């Protein structure tokens, strides 16, 4: 079987959806956050495969940007989650409902 662009895209799409499901379904903030990273990486995979099959490097460059940004995001995000955990002794989303309506 020849592995073409569609397959890579399909994998990337599946990864993206898995990430999405993780965000929606999992209760733990850290897991949710990891699912988000999964979604970003799905985008990266798509970019890289487009890059490979279109013979253009712009996509690869963009991936570097994304990885960098994601790293920054993770740094801030994890710090936040940790601060919250310290405060509440919990990293579950159900506990975060002091503001509503």
């Amino acid at each position: 079987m020849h592995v073409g662009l569609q397959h890579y895209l399909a994998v990337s799409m599946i990864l993206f959806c898995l990430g999405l499901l993780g965000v929606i379904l999992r209760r733990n903030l850290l897991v949710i956050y990891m699912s988000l990273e999964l979604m970003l990486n799905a985008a990266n995979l798509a970019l890289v495969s487009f890059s490979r099959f279109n013979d253009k490097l712009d996509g690869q460059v963009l991936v570097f940007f994304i990885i960098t940004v994601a790293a920054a995001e993770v740094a801030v995000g994890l710090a936040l989650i940790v601060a919250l955990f310290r405060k509440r002794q919990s990293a579950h989303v159900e506990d975060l409902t002091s503001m509503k309506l």
Partner: protein
Amino acid sequence: MNSSLNFIGMEVSVIGLGLVLMLADLFVPAERRRFIGYLGIGVLGLLLLFSLGGDGSCSTFGSVFNGSFVNDPLSLFFKRFFLVAAILVLFIAAEFSDRLSEGSIAEYYSLIVFALAGMLFAASANDFVMLFVSVELITITFYVLVSYQRSKIAALEAGVKYLILGALSSAFMVFGIALIWGTTGKLNFTELAAVAGQYGDSKIFLLGVLLVLVGLGFKIAAFPFQIWAPDVYQGAPTPTTAFLAVGSKAAGFVLLLRVLFSAVPSVTAQWGNLLIVISGITILYGNLCALPQRNLKRLLGYSSISHAGYLLLGVAALNASGQAAILYYLAGYLFTVLAGFLVIALVLRHLDTEDISGLAGLNQRSPLLAATMTISMVSLAGIPPLAGFFGKFLLIKSAVEAAQLTCNHGYYCLIFTALAGVVISLYYYFGVIKVMYWSKEAKDLTIIELSAPAKVTAWVCILGIFWLGLFPNTVLNMANAAAAVFAVVVK
């Protein structure tokens, strides 16, 4: 290369300023750190003067870095806008500094300045990479800004909510960018515009554009991506909320305008109905939810959703007057919203809740603040002679023009939805005024002493609101010139 750096002189100086402010923290004794903010204000003020004088880096039109960074009337307009916003927010932050004592206030200032840098980049972004990076620069700084009051559980909660949903929207946006690039092979807006017409039928391409719009829709808090706004507005420190309401939203709009009218104008032209529906629902959602709201900041959060709806009305009109109207409206919105948050910051900072009743009797406590809040609310509602009225007037005009041009009755439906929204909003905006002037709940009637900078800020906001309401010529011409950028693309 040297000339390229000249083009981004303002951005570079702003980033430099951010670093300086952060470092200043080390050398300034703790009790005087709030004054570091005035240093930032001074520098930003100078930059603003340069830009107004016409010899700043941003007033040299052209594009650099392979066309990914562009200086044109539109970016000029927004850069001035962001500078003014940041200056006023720094004033508010300085007044609010005693509530931010857990972290160092200087860091807070520098984060604001970094967010400003992101916004300045956003104003000039002309390709998807720049778009992504500037958006992320803004968003990530805001994660910190929102949850700055670490000891407040609400602030952390708001921070986490903003973080997760922000990251979610970024993921969508990135995926969208990937799809766009994958189908067209272009990242630059100008280049994309040339070919976008050919991909009008490609669902993958359209999906990509839509996903990018999802990311931007998140920033401007348009329906159905508005869900985060009330919680984050409520939980964040007041200066952050103010900057979020003005700067972040405006950055979203400038990018939205660029993507819709610079990058994919041919696709956008098909999406009138989509934009009409989104705009209408956003207006109704924001106004209806605000109706029973008692928490002031949350109220302004909902109100900010509805204003995103009004602004989208200008987008939906798909014409130059609509785009100019958006810019004008945003300019008015800047002074109006900051006036409101200034009062909230000053009056409610010592209260645990931000309930409207905290404003009771404000007319006796501080007539200036009461007047500022009144003018802000009235301008938000869009009543002459204030800025909000002229903005809404321009928006409605553009929609009517679109309606008469296209014979699309949807526009009239949208206009009447907007009217309904305005009338609904009068109820809660005027409710605030009522509380200040004749509420019976007033218990604490101590006079509020105002510092000189606070007074200056209040007066700047008031004068700005009146200026934009009474003498629209200058800004309107600027907005028209900025909107003319898109006319070139269409041709």
